[in-house]
């Protein structure tokens, strides 16, 4: 991590830029929430948009503030596994939720 002083100063300017971006995105989420997106009686549309913006913001924080853009492969290896497991947990739990044995009474 032998950053030169000049590098660090230019980084700082960049962080400020990211900060501004994050603020704009936050305002965007709140603003967009007034509108109903998608089908009339479901909030799936809003949910997707809200989560998309949140993911984008989280991505910015992780990539720049947490220096993931210049991180070593070792870290990526296990972060990759972690993310895979979270997604697996999430999807499989939902799959189980949506695939019960269908109750059928033959009347």
């Amino acid at each position: 991590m032998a950053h030169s002083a000049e590098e660090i100063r230019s980084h700082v300017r960049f962080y400020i830029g990211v900060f501004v971006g994050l603020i704009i995105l936050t305002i965007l989420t709140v603003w967009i929430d007034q509108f109903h997106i998608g089908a009339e009686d479901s909030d799936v549309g809003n949910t997707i948009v809200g989560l998309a913006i949140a993911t984008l913001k989280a991505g910015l924080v992780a990539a720049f503030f947490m220096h993931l853009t210049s991180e070593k492969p070792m870290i990526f290896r296990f972060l990759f596994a972690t993310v895979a497991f979270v997604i697996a947990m999430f999807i499989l739990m939902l799959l189980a939720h949506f695939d019960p044995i269908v109750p059928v009474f033959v009347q």
Partner: protein
Amino acid sequence: MEIPYTVTARADTGLWNAKIGIWLFLASEVMLFGGLFSGYVFLRLGAASTPDYDWPTELLNVPMGFVNTLILIGSSVTVILSWSALKLREYNKFKIWMSITLLCAVAFLGIKTVEYTEKFTGYGIFLNDGAEIKGKYATEQEGFVTIVPKYPEKAEAAGFTPAPATLAVHEGSYVIPVENVVRWSNFQPSYNTFYSIYFTLTGLHALHVIGGVVVLGYFLFFGGPMWRTNPEHLANRVEVGGLFWHFVDLVWIFLFPILYLM
């Protein structure tokens, strides 16, 4: 022999120990909040499949959540600035930025406290016929439940009557006989599934914030000796603490829309 790579990076991995340590810790935190998040979705889908279950997002205070989001994002920037200052060996700047970070954290917790108080003084009443009346300052006295409803029209439609003078502790109170009430309480975790998950998620997050305050505060107030002997080590520690802090921010970035908006 001493433990190597506490400050300098190992050549083949390019990393020093604490850097790996913190990322591993964050990985487990991702699983923790991932589990909570999966739980949230699971419960919400369950709620959505029952006909009259409500998910009262709208009761949360969006402006406060919004301001808190900005505060946390801001503190994320200041913590990274304080790290940069250390890297540039500017100890005073480090102190300034770190102090601002901590102030942000305290402000965040302050706003959170206000929000929690708001919840604990708000009340909801579940009636026999399935209606739910929300408001403030509910009490139970002389066989009646009194409340200052948020929407008086709704309360009247549900059978509430304006409180007689003896029962009207607060202005605009309405009453309903206890027999008509299934249960009533303030907006505490047990109020319904939404508040359960709201308090659990934000409570855990607040614990993380407090943890971050302790760690970063330690660097700020007790970092002096290390700064004099081994500033690079201090910078590394601040980087590690900062990574944790960014993660706390990152979690909030998800919590805000999930809980307040959606």
